[in-house]
């Protein structure tokens, strides 16, 4: 039952989810903000691709880069316009703001474009298959794996070898202390949002690549995925987020094969039961981060 095709599919799913979780946790680590508008960044990336497809014929790669750029810009703008002014208020205020931003972007897509699905231009490789060890495997999946590995390596270099990266990691460890040491808070937070938007934009390419279309509500599913993967990874550490993403991708694929058909519909509910159990019994996740979620009682 566990064929090569299945394994590659699971790993490519996991790679996508790892990027998703990383994009969420990089903001969470610093602001403790669970960004409900994160899924909408994917949607914006998808719609950018759709809009660019209407214009003059550009090479797909150029369109993809531009779409990711729009996602980065949107993420930065949401921080600048909505999150920064409420940052000093309570965490709940920030959470509600992100929920409002999510609703805002979703309905903006409804209003400006259409409630109906829109076709997104994709290069031919996305629908082709390659022969790997005698089995046909969608190239899209291999691309997802390759892209994630490259991006993860780049992020490791950014976070470990550059001043900015070190500031980011320090901020997610102890934001107040980092500020006192003279790291500009606004810059760090803006960069975190930009990276978050970048990862969401890249994931958007593969996400819309599966269905070749984009709808205003396309962000809901990846948001839930990012939640689950982030929690599995322990919410604090960036390594944890990557592990959480892969674990989620693989477990989700396995559940799809192993669970009887009648229960398969409840697959999402199972994943969220796992989330609750992890938060209750192992809030530090699979990978121990710097600090666990605060508990009372």
């Amino acid at each position, binding site marked *: 039952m566990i064929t090569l095709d299945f394994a590659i599919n699971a790993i490519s799913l996991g790679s996508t989810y790892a990027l998703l979780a990383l994009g969420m946790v990089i903001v969470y680590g610093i602001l403790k903000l669970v960004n409900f508008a994160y899924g909408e960044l994917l949607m914006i990336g998808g719609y950018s691709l759709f809009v660019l497809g209407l214009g003059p014929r550009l090479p797909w790669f150029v369109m993809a880069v531009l779409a990711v750029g729009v996602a980065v810009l949107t993420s930065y703008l949401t921080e600048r316009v909505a999150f920064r002014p409420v940052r000093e208020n309570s965490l709940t205020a920030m959470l509600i703001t992100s929920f409002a931003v999510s609703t805002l972007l979703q309905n903006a897509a409804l209003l400006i474009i259409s409630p109906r699905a829109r076709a997104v231009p994709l290069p031919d490789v996305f629908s082709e298959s390659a022969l790997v060890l005698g089995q046909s495997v969608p190239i899209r999946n291999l691309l997802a794996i390759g892209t994630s590995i490259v991006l993860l390596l780049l992020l490791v270099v950014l976070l470990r070898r550059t001043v900015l990266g070190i500031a980011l990691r320090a901020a997610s460890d102890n934001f107040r202390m980092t500020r006192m040491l003279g790291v500009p808070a606004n810059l760090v937070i803006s960069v975190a949002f930009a990276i978050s938007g970048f990862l969401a934009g890249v994931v958007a390419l593969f996400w819309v690549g599966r269905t070749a279309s984009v709808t205003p509500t396309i962000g809901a599913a990846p948001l*839930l995925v990012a939640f689950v993967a982030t929690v599995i990874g322990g919410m604090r550490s960036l390594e944890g987020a990557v592990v959480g993403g892969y674990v989620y991708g693989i477990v989700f694929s396995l559940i799809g094969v192993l669970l009887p058909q009648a229960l398969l519909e409840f697959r999402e509910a199972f994943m969220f039961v796992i989330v*609750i159990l992890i938060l*209750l019994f192992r809030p530090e996740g699979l990978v121990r981060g710097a600090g666990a*979620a605060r508990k*009372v009682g």
Partner: protein
Amino acid sequence: MSMNPRGWVLRNSTFFVITAGLLIVGAITWAIGDLLIERIVTVMFVDVILVLALQVFMGNSGILSFSVAGFMGIGAYGSVLFSMTPAAKAAALPDLYPFLTQVHLPFLAALVMGGLIAALVAAIVSYPLMRLSDAAGVITIFSLLVIINVVLVHWSTVTNGPRTLFGVDRFTYLGTSVVFCVLFTAVAWWFKESRTGLRLRASRDDAYAAASVGINIVAVRYAAFILSAFMAGFAGALWAHFITSFSPYAFYLSAMFVFLAMLVIGGPNGVSGAVVGAVLVTALREVLRSIENNVNMSKILPSGLVGFTEIVMAVLLIVILILRPGGIMGGRELRWPPKGHLRWPPKCHLRWPPWKRAPGGTDKGV
């Protein structure tokens, strides 16, 4: 507590002021006699109960609670199973479990069942969740909403799955909804002023200080969560017997967004804020929706104005959170005599640009 009735009335003047307001709105609506306005106001009263349910837990505990919409759904489906006639059930839910097919209760009993089932579900699942605060608390309660929704969508035997459930008789009219609205205002007010409510609010303001004076934070949160679920379930039941046909998607994030907007715009830390927010937001939404409908009918814009209402609501919500995080009421309650509690114009941190913080403290809001 003194037995002086005048003192008692003054101490609870908030409840009486709100009740008077709700009754006046109800009476005016009844006097106008317009069917459409009556429908809007009836739903508004049900929404007030839902926002009060949200306030009971979120306002007093400070934990953002997404699950109200889920418990509303449980109450809706739970009550309908008891109020539908066996014939209607046979038609709408052919695969229903045999022990439920013949049950038929009067409406009021069915509404109470809806609330009780929601409270029971909350009581069973929520105790361990009450240990979590902050982001972890939000994610678990959010997860609960997702789980409830998945179950409602896929448990076709009882809910008719993602499809619309038909065959519910109407019970909720203007009078019904205003009576229960007043009743649950009393409940929310009583809870806020009760020992448990006071302890819960103390834990919201400073969990460590509260724990250090012997408050069992988990227990008080648990009590509020169950009460909140009961109110949401009951309101869901009222709504189900008003709308008479519905699907599980009515009890998910878009509904939750409206309730949250109502509470936060009104002011989450008080009962008055919940009621004022629900009333004002209903009025605003109706205005926006009529604009939306008029534009759509007149075909000024080729693609219509879908989503306009939610966009304005979202912007308003963000603006309120930035400029006045305590909501319109700013944590105060309506009182009689007013004693300068209500200032007009309300004090507001108006500054430009808005992201530049004013020095000094801000009013504590959400």
